[in-house]
């Protein structure tokens, strides 16, 4: 099994979820609100007369653990739906998972996904 970590724009979350649902390859997911930076530049703000740039921008981190066979589909979906074509579209990182257990039943392996 693989762990796919995708950092995406918060406003794309719902679209991505819909697309993954349709592709039938995301049985479960974890969503974390993070801030990050990569190539994207920051947002200018003002505080009572002083300008500054908030350079850590809000992103959504999507963590999916999927069967090895589903990895290509998930990648394809993400690359299709998540970008708007500007800096800040995000990245995908893939890791190996050694074991998965469903807490409710104790099932392990792909059955637990």
């Amino acid at each position, binding site marked *: 099994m693989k762990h796919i970590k995708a950092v995406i724009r918060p*406003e794309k979350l*719902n*679209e991505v979820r819909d697309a993954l649902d349709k592709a039938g390859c995301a049985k479960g997911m974890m969503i974390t609100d993070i801030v990050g930076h990569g190539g994207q530049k920051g947002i200018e703000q003002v505080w009572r007369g002083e300008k500054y740039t908030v350079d850590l921008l809000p992103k959504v981190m999507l963590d999916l653990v999927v069967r090895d066979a589903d990895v290509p589909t998930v990648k394809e979906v993400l690359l299709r739906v998540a970008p708007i074509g500007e800096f800040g579209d995000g990245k995908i990182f893939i890791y190996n998972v050694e074991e998965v257990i469903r807490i409710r039943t104790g099932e392990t392996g792909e059955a637990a996904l």
Partner: protein
Amino acid sequence: MDTKIVLDTLWVLLGAMLVFFMNLGFALVESGFARSKNAVNILSKNFIVFAVSSMGYLLLGWGLMFGDGNGFIGTSGLWFVGGADNSPAVGDAYQGVYSAIAWTGVPLWAKFFFQLVFCGTAATIVSGAVAERIKYLAFILFSFFLTLLIYPAVGHWIWGGGFLAGLGMWDFAGSSVVHSTGGWAALAGILVLGPRFGKYGPGKRINPIPGHSLPLATIGAFVLWLGWFGFNPGSTMAADPGAIAHILVTTNTAGIMGLLVATGAAWLLLGKPDLGMSINGLLAGLVAITAGCAFVSVPSSIIIGAAAGLLVVLAVVFFDRARIDDPVGALSVHLVNGVFGTLAVGLFAQDGITGVATGNGLFFGGGFRLLGAQALGVVTVGGFVFAASLLVWFLLQKTMGIRVNLKEEIQGLDIGEHGNVAYPEFLIHKPSYHVANGHGHGGGAAGGGR
């Protein structure tokens, strides 16, 4: 100094202060009902709107509304409240150009400030309805024209000795003058602006967009409730004990009935007593009694309030089905119940109940005379305010644009319009949901966290 003048001035100014404080109430209800990414924008609008109204009404609004003139508009003492006036003289002793309001024996500046806070209320109603997509500057300019020209015209007709008053229309504290005027102006704005991005999906799908803070909204509701005790009883503009006590009780009674009935209706219809609907219910009851608070009995106020509570629930659902996107329910509260409240005078009025010779309403044997006058007022005010507002909104749209661009709307107006965020240290995320009447994930691409 004549004691009555002192007493009346104290009462008028206390009332005016309470109504002024309603600006805070509106600011909080509206920002609580909106998303956090637009909270600074809404607070800014509600913060500056009273300043803008103060300018517009001082500059010209007061003069148009109360200056002597014809049935349609004031033509004397127009600028900067600068006409001749020997207030607090009243009746025959009065000499000046603001004779339509010479019945109340308080100093000119007391009259002005009291009328100003009402004018400001009309402007602040618009704010919530056009929230989450309008340009800050466009809102400021619209408010300026509303308080400079549109509101004063309507006010002249009904409170400034104009033709509607002459035709026997009664609006004690402004269900029409203030609330429906604000409501019609808001409706015009909503139609020109269009709905918020992501509010309506394909087909019949409606995406609810929950507000970000019910505590803020609830504080606002209490502040408005308090403010209404200045709004209605204060509109006697005289410290008449019997009248003000009566009005206070009819006002409160209608408000609580609106609250109770809207809560109950939501409970029955939706299965849960939704707090947002309870708040709208209270406000609906208060708006509905505003025209008639001095003209109807306490039992009648129970009925009016209860009807308002039901109306507001239905209206909220109606406007959503009609795809008229009003983020805070301003139309359901102020427009629908402003109209209803004005008509209710024609139904429930009892001649002289607090000393005013309104004649009786339909249910008290007065026949259709009063109701007819009220209906005429409703239609005239509605037609004029809606048309005039449409015109102003269109002019603004053609010249400067009134809607922020899509990217800014998605990111939130706070950054785009103000360079501020409301809560810089809090982790904020957009809730994700499924909608009962649609499929897919709610809000669609309706925009991310902050």
